[in-house]
């Protein structure tokens, strides 16, 4: 059992508040990913859990004990750094066994654990090499091996894949997931890559500017973001935001966009938005919910959406089409067979069952509970 919990954790450097009161509980064996833009305080949070950074205010508990004043070595954690931080003068097996040797483990136990970790990570042939004789991906594995042999309560990862090339990154991502399935340990993983976050996490923690914006399972964040920040951060290409006005026409509610296009809301969402009729709002619609016109699948409610493509980007699996509504740029995701051309008007289908309406002032997504 190793639960990690943060209570109103604050980190202040002279002048800046890097982390501004974080509450988070990470369950036993759970894989939690902290994600957010550069400078939002992810690394700082992770380093406070590791004990490499002092906690200005609040408390961190590991396994029920407050560890604010416990040095890193007594927290029973292992950390994988962005640039691996392998000891350059030690061989791979020496790197992996360093912590155990310091703790004076018996030789055959060390041997056994190193071999076991090497087997899991597929680096059995590299044990006698020095780090500089390894490729980036291999170093990454060794860094993970060093964490695994310690058999810690908590794994901490700080952007472990960002030094790898795109292909290797995808490969190592799967590897990390596989290792976590084989060696299930409470894990906190920091990244600024939302794809990494979505694919790896049991739960994703979206951070922005020192606070948590939202915590949830990957699909939950994707389908029901609570703030404009989360809505825009999760998903790629990111959600389109369009200024609009919510109007009533008889029983129907409709959003009117800048250039006069009016989209009728599906009947189910009427109740949710009724109180906002007449207000200026922001419509949030993901590119994948703005597609070529096609027979609606079950439950889909689509509204016609006229567009004149400015830019067309074929991606293979689908084609991204960019066009303007008023002064705002919008991205749609079409099937390549629709074959859109720049300058030729088309009619897209907006899947309004999947749209969001946001309050332009607070940036909160309407109809969801506030963050808490």
């Amino acid at each position: 059992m190793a639960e990690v919990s943060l209570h109103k954790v604050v980190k202040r450097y002279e002048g800046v508040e890097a982390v501004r009161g974080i509450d988070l509980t990470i369950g036993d064996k759970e894989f939690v990913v902290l994600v957010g833009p550069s400078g939002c305080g992810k690394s700082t949070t992770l380093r406070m859990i590791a004990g490499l950074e002092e906690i200005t205010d609040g408390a961190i508990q590991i396994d029920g004990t407050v560890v604010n004043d416990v040095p890193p070595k007594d927290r029973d954690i292992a950390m994988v750094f962005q640039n691996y931080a392998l000891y350059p003068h030690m061989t791979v097996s020496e790197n992996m066994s360093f912590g155990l040797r310091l703790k004076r483990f018996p030789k055959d136990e060390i041997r056994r654990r190193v071999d076991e970790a090497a087997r899991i990570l597929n680096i059995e042939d590299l044990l006698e090499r020095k780090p500089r004789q390894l490729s980036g991906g291999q170093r990454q594995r060794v860094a993970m091996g060093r964490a695994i042999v310690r058999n810690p309560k908590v794994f901490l990862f700080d952007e472990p894949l960002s030094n790898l090339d795109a292909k290797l990154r995808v490969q190592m991502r799967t590897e990390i997931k596989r290792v976590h399935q084989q060696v299930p340990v409470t894990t906190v993983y920091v990244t600024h890559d939302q794809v990494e976050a979505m694919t790896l996490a049991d739960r994703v923690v979206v951070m922005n500017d020192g606070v948590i914006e939202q915590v949830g399972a990957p699909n939950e964040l994707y389908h029901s973001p609570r703030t404009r920040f989360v809505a825009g951060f999760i998903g790629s290409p990111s959600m389109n935001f369009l200024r609009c006005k919510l109007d009533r026409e008889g029983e129907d509610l409709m959003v009117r966009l800048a250039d006069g296009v009016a989209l009728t809301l599906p009947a189910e969402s009427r109740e949710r938005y009724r109180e906002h009729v007449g207000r200026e709002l922001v419509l949030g619609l993901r590119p994948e919910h703005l597609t070529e016109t096609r027979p609606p699948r079950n439950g889909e409610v689509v509204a016609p959406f006229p567009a004149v493509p400015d830019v067309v980007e074929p991606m293979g699996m689908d084609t991204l089409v960019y066009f303007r509504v008023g002064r705002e740029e919008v991205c749609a995701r079409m099937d390549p067979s629709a074959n859109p051309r720049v300058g030729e008007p088309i009619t897209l289908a907006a899947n309004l069952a999947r749209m969001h309406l946001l309050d332009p002032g607070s940036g909160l997504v309407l109809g969801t509970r506030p963050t808490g």
Partner: protein
Amino acid sequence: MSQTAQASSVAVPRRTMRQWLKRPSTIAFLMTLPLILLIGLLVLYPAGYAIHLATLNKGMTRFVGFGNFEFLFGRETFWMVVKQSCIFAITAVVFKAIIGFVVAHFVHNIPSKGQRKWRGMLLVPWVIPPAMSTLAWLWLFDPSYSAFNWVLAQFGADPVPWTGDAYWARFSVILVNIWIGSPFFMIMYLAALKSVPDQLYEAALIDGANWWQRIWYITLPMMRNIIAITALFSLIVTFANFDIVRILTAGGPLDLTHVFATWSFLVGIESGDIPLGASVSLFMMPFLAIAAVIILRDVVKRGSQA
């Protein structure tokens, strides 16, 4: 040059003088040739001349081969100088290295704002000309009027014959050498310390290393090359030290603090036996050369695998 280059680039491949001239290594050699000649002139000529001198008789009229060395090996004073030089150089280098390492650690841990000031101040002993600072030390060591003995007197202790007694005189010359030389180690080690990535220490911290283990398993191995090169360099310079001993004790009392350079000066210049003086100063060369080869080979080997 450009004409020959063009000509040979179209010519059928053939090992010609022109092709040889075109090779990058040849060009590099030719471009460094002036410097090589200059160094040869400034280093090899005096060294060669010293070796030549060492093989002559006192009047520099006759070739005596190893005669001077045979004569030296038979003299007790010579072996005393060898012993004193080794004690002097090795003790001084060891302490300079230790002090330099400790001070470098302290300076490294000072927040970067104040660090420049400290670095500058700590370099002072190394920057002022040794002859001058040694003079200052000479005054400090003065048996009757010096600050040291005054302080001792305040505590009711007997005055210490800093340069008068053999053991104290040895202690004093070594102390001054350490004082002058430590900043060099400090600055070299500081540079080395700064090149060790912080994350290695953080990784070690998480692996459970205490501060001593971090120094032993991280800092020292990461600094090994710098430590070796600095020590070698300092060893050579310290073995050849002249000014400190000359000014502080002039080799006395009873020749007990002489090192190679001062004794060779005494024998060669002051007593007028230049070939013998040259032999004295040449004696250490083979030993230092061997030490240099061993240390540097180790550095190169490690450098290519670290």
